C-alpha cells in the first residue's frame, strides 16, 4: 500500500541542514532535486505512526524506494497549564489604570482597549466576540440594558476595575439548567461614593430658544441614583427618553395594554409626516429619577419616577370634502390647539434572585391630568372646545420562574385598574336639531367616566424533541368595564338616549400551543390558540342585557424554505375570529368631538379575518444585487356596516346597520438594489402597490368604494470620497379613489430628500439637508421646501461637542398633507417652526 503524506528530506550528513524535501503524493511517490557539491547525502523519511528511516546515499540521480514499518510514534508534547483566570464561571479582572491613556475620558474609552473586550459603534460592549448580557455597577443592575448612559458618562478615574463574569446566568435558579456562554460585566468603583454626570446647554433664536439637559449620577456599593432634568422649547421630544424600549416590555404591552386612550377629543391637526423637531411647538420640562438599593443579598428594590410637563401649540387649516351621492359637502376649518400635559409615573420593582426562586414584581402608578383647548373657525361659526382628559392607573405585574425536575415553568400574573373621567365642553352648543329641538344654544358638555379592572394570569412551559419545539401557555383573563356618560345642554342634563350607564364583563379561558419545526432549510410554525369567551353587557338605562358565550380557534400556519443560499421563499396562512369593539358598544349617544355625535348601538358580534401572505428573497453578494418581494391578501368580514349620517352643517351621526360588511385588501411591496463598485454608489428601486375594496353606508345609500395606491420610489447613495457622502431619495404616490356613483378622484404627490455629509477633518462634520414635497391638487401651494444646515466640532482631547444648527433655512411656514378615506377627501396645512439658529455645547462633569 503506497504511503502518502510522508516527508522526505535530503540533509547534509554532518550538519543535518535540510537541502531540499518532498511530501509523498497519493501514490506514495516523491522526487527531489538537489544542487550540491557534497559527495554523500542523507535521505530521511518521516511519517507519523511509522518508524523513522534514514540512510546515506551518493549524490547522483537515482531512484530509492522505501518500505515503512508501522510503529506507534510518541511525539514530544507541549502543553500549557490553563491560566486560572480563564476557568469557566470564573471572574476576569482588569485594572483600569493599566489601560487608561491621558486622552481617555469615560470608562467606555478604556474598555475598548482591554484584551477580549470590544465596544461597537452603537455602544454595545462585546466580550470575546459576544455582546454582554448585563452591565452591573457594583453588582447592581440599575439601567437594565440602557447602560450607554453610564458607560459613556462615568469617568474612568472613578473606576477601580472592570470584571468580566464568564458564563454568567443572571437568573440564579436557571444556573445549572440553562447553559450560557454569555458574559456579564461589572464595574468596581474606587470610592464608596462616586458622583458624576453629563450636561448639555444650548441657546438660540428666534424667538428665544433654549435646550438644557443635565444628568447627574451617584453610585455607591448599595445604593445608586441617576437623576435627569431636561427642558427645551426647540421641538425636541424628550418624552422619548423615559419610554421603555426593551422587546420584553413591548410584548407585555400588546397582551395587556395599559396605555392611555382618550374617549373624547378636540379636533386635531394631522401631524406632518416629517421629523417632529420641524413642527413641534413645545415648552417641555422633564424630570426623571432612578434609584436602586440592595436590601439583603439577592433582593433588589428599584424605584423609577418621572414627571413630564409640556405645553404645546398647533396651528393650521383643515379642508374636508365629503363625496355624497347628491352633492359634495365641503368643510373648511381654521384650527388653533393648545395641549397641557402633566404626567407623573412611578415604577417600584422588587427582584428576588436566589438559587430557589426567581421573582420579579413591578408595581406601577400613573397620574395624568392633561388638558386641551381648541379653537376652530369653520364655514359657519367659531367654536371653542375645552377638554379635560385625565387618566389614573395602578398596575401590578408578577413574574415567577420555578423548576420541577428539569422542566422550567414561568408563572405570570397581571392586575390593572384604571380610570378616565373625561369631559368636553363646546361653545356654542352643537347638534341643535338633535339636542335642543332645533333651537340654537350656548354650550354643550359631554362627560364620561370609564373604569377598567382587568387581570391576566398564565403558566408557560416549553418542551423540545429533536427538531420540534412545543411552547404552551394556559391561563385566564377577566375584564370588568364600567362606563357612565351624560350630555348637558346649557345647564340641563339630557336623559334617556343621551346618557349611558353600562357594565361590561368579559372572561377568557385559553390554551395556546405553538409548535415549531426547524431543520436545515425548513422552518415551519403552527399556532393553534383555543379560547373560551364569555361576554356580558348590561345596560342600566334601558335595562337590557346581552350575553355571548363562544369558543374561538384561530389557527396560524407559517413556513419558510431556503432553496439555496441565494433564494429564500416563505408563506403564511391565517384565520382569525374575534370579538371586536365590544368596548365601543354604547346604546346612548356620545359626543366624541364637536362634530361627531355617535351612537354605537349594535350587538356583540364576531368578525372573521382571513389572511394569506407570501414573500421571496434573492441575494447575489458577488454582483451586489439584492431583491425582495412580498404580497399580502386579507379579507375581513363584519356582521355590521357602519352608517354615517352627514348633516348639512358638517356634523355626523355614526350608527351600525345589520348588513354583512366585506373588506378586501391586497398589497405588494418589491425592492431591488445594486451596488456599483466603480461609482461607489448603491441604487435602490422600489414599488409599493395597494388595493382596497369595501362598503360604506352614507346617508342610507350603500356605496362601494375602491382605493388604490401606486408608489414607485428610488434611492441613490454614494460615498464619492472618504470625506463626502451624498444620499438622495425620491418617493412618489399615485392615489386613486372611486365610489360607486361618483367620478374617480386622483392625486399625485412626491417627496424628494437630499442629504450631503462632509467630513473636512476627523473631528468636524457638516451636514446639509434639503427636502421637497410636491402635490398636484392644491392650486395655491404645490411645493414645500425645507433646508437644514448642521455643523459639529469635537474637541477630541476634552470630549466636548460643539454644535451649530440652522433649521428651516428657507423659512417655510406650512406643511401640507392630504389623504382619501373611503368617502371623504382630507387635507391639512400645519404651521411648522420658523427658521431658527441653535448653538449648543455638551460636556461631562
Amino acid at each position, binding site marked *: 500500500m503506497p504511503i502518502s503524506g510522508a516527508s522526505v528530506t535530503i540533509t547534509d550528513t554532518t550538519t543535518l541542514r535540510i537541502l531540499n524535501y518532498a511530501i509523498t503524493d497519493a501514490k506514495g511517490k516523491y522526487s527531489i532535486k538537489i544542487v550540491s557539491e557534497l559527495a554523500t547525502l542523507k535521505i530521511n523519511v518521516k511519517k507519523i505512526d511509522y518508524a523513522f528511516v534514514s540512510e546515506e546515499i551518493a549524490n547522483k540521480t537515482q531512484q530509492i524506494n522505501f518500505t515503512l514499518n508501522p510503529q506507534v510514534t510518541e511525539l514530544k508534547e507541549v502543553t500549557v497549564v490553563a491560566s486560572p483566570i480563564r476557568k469557566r464561571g470564573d471572574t476576569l479582572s482588569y485594572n483600569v489604570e493599566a489601560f487608561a491613556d491621558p486622552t481617555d475620558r469615560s470608562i467606555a474609552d478604556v474598555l475598548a482597549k482591554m484584551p477580549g473586550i470590544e465596544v461597537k459603534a452603537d455602544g454595545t460592549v462585546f466580550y470575546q466576540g459576544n455582546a454582554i448580557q448585563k452591565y452591573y455597577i457594583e453588582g447592581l443592575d440599575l439601567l437594565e440594558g440602557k447602560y450607554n448612559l453610564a458607560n459613556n458618562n462615568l469617568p474612568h478615574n472613578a473606576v477601580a476595575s472592570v470584571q468580566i463574569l464568564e458564563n454568567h446566568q443572571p437568573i440564579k435558579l436557571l444556573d445549572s439548567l440553562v447553559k450560557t456562554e454569555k458574559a456579564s460585566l461589572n464595574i468596581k468603583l474606587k470610592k464608596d461614593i462616586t458622583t458624576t454626570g453629563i450636561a448639555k446647554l444650548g441657546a438660540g433664536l428666534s424667538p428665544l430658544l433654549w435646550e438644557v439637559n443635565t444628568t447627574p449620577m451617584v453610585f455607591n456599593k448599595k445604593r445608586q441614583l441617576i437623576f435627569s432634568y431636561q427642558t427645551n422649547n426647540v421641538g425636541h421630544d424628550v418624552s422619548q427618553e423615559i419610554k421603555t424600549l426593551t422587546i420584553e416590555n413591548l410584548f407585555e404591552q400588546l397582551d395587556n395594554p395599559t396605555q392611555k386612550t382618550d374617549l373624547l377629543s378636540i379636533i386635531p391637526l394631522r401631524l406632518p409626516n416629517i421629523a417632529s423637531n420641524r413642527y413641534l411647538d413645545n415648552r417641555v420640562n422633564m424630570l426623571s429619577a432612578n434609584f436602586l438599593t440592595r436590601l439583603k443579598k439577592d433582593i433588589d428594590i428599584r424605584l423609577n419616577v418621572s414627571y413630564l410637563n409640556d405645553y404645546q401649540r398647533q396651528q393650521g387649516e383643515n379642508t374636508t370634502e365629503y363625496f355624497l351621492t347628491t352633492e359634495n359637502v365641503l368643510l373648511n376649518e381654521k384650527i388653533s390647539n393648545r395641549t397641557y400635559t402633566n404626567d407623573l409615573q412611578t415604577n417600584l420593582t422588587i427582584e428576588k434572585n436566589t438559587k430557589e426562586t426567581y421573582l420579579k414584581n413591578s408595581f406601577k402608578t400613573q397620574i395624568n391630568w392633561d388638558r386641551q383647548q381648541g379653537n376652530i373657525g369653520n364655514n359657519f361659526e367659531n367654536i371653542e372646545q375645552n377638554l379635560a382628559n385625565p387618566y389614573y392607573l395602578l398596575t401590578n405585574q408578577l413574574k415567577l420562574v420555578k423548576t420541577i425536575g428539569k422542566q422550567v415553568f414561568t408563572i405570570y400574573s397581571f392586575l390593572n385598574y384604571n380610570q378616565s373621567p373625561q369631559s368636553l365642553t363646546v361653545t356654542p352648543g352643537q347638534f341643535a336639531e338633535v339636542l335642543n329641538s332645533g333651537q340654537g344654544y350656548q354650550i354643550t358638555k359631554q362627560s364620561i367616566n370609564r373604569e377598567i379592572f382587568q387581570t391576566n394570569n398564565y403558566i408557560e412551559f416549553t418542551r423540545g424533541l429533536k*427538531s420540534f419545539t412545543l411552547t404552551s401557555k394556559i391561563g385566564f383573563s377577566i375584564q370588568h368595564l364600567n362606563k357612565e356618560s351624560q350630555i348637558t345642554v346649557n345647564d340641563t342634563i339630557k336623559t334617556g338616549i343621551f346618557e349611558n350607564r353600562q357594565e361590561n364583563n368579559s372572561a377568557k379561558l385559553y390554551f395556546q400551543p405553538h409548535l415549531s419545526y426547524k431543520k436545515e432549510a425548513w422552518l415551519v410554525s403552527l399556532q393553534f390558540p383555543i379560547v373560551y369567551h364569555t361576554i356580558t353587557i348590561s345596560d342600566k338605562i334601558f335595562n337590557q342585557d346581552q350575553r355571548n358565550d363562544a369558543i374561538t380557534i384561530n389557527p396560524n400556519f407559517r413556513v419558510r424554505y431556503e432553496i439555496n443560499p441565494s433564494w429564500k421563499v416563505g408563506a403564511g396562512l391565517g384565520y382569525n375570529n374575534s370579538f371586536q369593539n365590544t368596548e365601543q358598544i354604547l346604546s346612548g349617544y356620545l359626543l366624541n368631538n364637536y362634530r361627531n355625535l355617535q351612537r354605537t348601538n349594535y350587538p356583540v358580534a364576531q368578525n372573521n379575518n382571513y389572511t394569506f401572505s407570501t414573500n421571496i428573497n434573492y441575494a447575489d*453578494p458577488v454582483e451586489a444585487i439584492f431583491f425582495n418581494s412580498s404580497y399580502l391578501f386579507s379579507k375581513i368580514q363584519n356582521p355590521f356596516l357602519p352608517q354615517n349620517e352627514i348633516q348639512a352643517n358638517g356634523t355626523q351621526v355614526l350608527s351600525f346597520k345589520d348588513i354583512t360588511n366585506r373588506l378586501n385588501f391586497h398589497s405588494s411591496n418589491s425592492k431591488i438594489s445594486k451596488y456599483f463598485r466603480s461609482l461607489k454608489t448603491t441604487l435602490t428601486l422600489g414599488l409599493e402597490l395597494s388595493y382596497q375594496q369595501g362598503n360604506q353606508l352614507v346617508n342610507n345609500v350603500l356605496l362601494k368604494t375602491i382605493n388604490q395606491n401606486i408608489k414607485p420610489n428610488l434611492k441613490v447613495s454614494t460615498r464619492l470620497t472618504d470625506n463626502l457622502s451624498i444620499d438622495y431619495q425620491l418617493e412618489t404616490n399615485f392615489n386613486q379613489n372611486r365610489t360607486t356613483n361618483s367620478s374617480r378622484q386622483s392625486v399625485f404627490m412626491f417627496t424628494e430628500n437630499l442629504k450631503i455629509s462632509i467630513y473636512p477633518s476627523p473631528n468636524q462634520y457638516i451636514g446639509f439637508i434639503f427636502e421637497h414635497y410636491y402635490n398636484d391638487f392644491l392650486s395655491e401651494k404645490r411645493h414645500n421646501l425645507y433646508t437644514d444646515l448642521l455643523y459639529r466640532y469635537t474637541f477630541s482631547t476634552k470630549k466636548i461637542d460643539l454644535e451649530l444648527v440652522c433649521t428651516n433655512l428657507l423659512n417655510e411656514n406650512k406643511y401640507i398633507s392630504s389623504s382619501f378615506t373611503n368617502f371623504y377627501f382630507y387635507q391639512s396645512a400645519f404651521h411648522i417652526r420658523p427658521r431658527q439658529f441653535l448653538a449648543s455645547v455638551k460636556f461631562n462633569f
Partner: protein
Amino acid sequence: MKKLLFVLFIFCTSLTFSQPISFDYEIKYVVSWQPDSLNPASKRTLEKYLLYINDSVSIFISEYEFVTDSVINNADRTSIQYITTLPYGYFDNKILKTRTSLLINERIGLDQYSYEDKLINSWKLSSDTMTIKGYRCNKATLAFRGRNYTAWYTTEIPFSDGPYKFSGLPGLIVSIADDKDHIAYTMESFRKLKVPRIYKVAYLKKSRKITRKEYLQVFDNYQATLLTDMESKGVIMQGQDKEKLKEKLKKQQKENNNRIELSSE
C-alpha cells in the same frame, strides 16, 4: 464550462466532508494582529486558533468558532436561545486542508461563503535553526500575497501543515510572522488527543460556493454597503444619532484597514 467544472469540484469536496471527521492531534496557536496598518499601537492578541490534524485532512479554526459549531451541531432544540448567545471568532474563516486542496469558508455579514485556493509550494529553505518550545526548528521564507513571511518548522512533528493557509514544509510550522510584524502565529501547545476530536463540517452545506475572485468582490461590496445594509435589515438609526453612528462606523472601518492578504493575485 470551467466554472461548471469548478462547481462540480467543490461539490465533490463538500461530499467528502459531509461525514464527521475525527482528528488525532491538536495544535494551539497564539495569534497577534495589527488591525490598523498605520498604527502599531492597535496591535492585539486574539483568541487562540486551533489546528486539528489527522492523517489526511486538517482544519484551522478559531477556538470560539469551534465551540459554537460543536454546540450547534449537537444541540437539542430546546436550547435555541442558548445558540444565539454563542461567540464568533475574530477571524471567522475556517480552513480545510487536504494533500491536494485548500478550502476556505468565511462569514461575511450574515452569509457564509466558501472558496478554493491554491496550496502554497514556493517556500525557500534556509540553513538557520532555532529551538522553540523544545523543538529543533528550521527556517523557511515565503513571499505570499504582498507579505514576506519567515516560518520556523520542525521535522520532529512530521505533519506538513501549519496555521492559516500555510503548509507544504517537511514538518509542522511552529511559528510564522510577516516582516512588518502585522500578523504572527506562534504555537502554544501540541498534543495527541486521548479521545479523538470529532468535528462535523456542517457549514459547507449552508455556504455559497464562489471563486476567490468573487470572494474578494463580495468582501469589498460588503465594506461599502454595510450601512445601507444595516438600515435595510431594520436597524433603526434616528436623526442625529444616526449621523454620529455613521461617523463612528466610518472610523471603525478606517481603523480596521489591514488584511492578511494584501494582493489579489
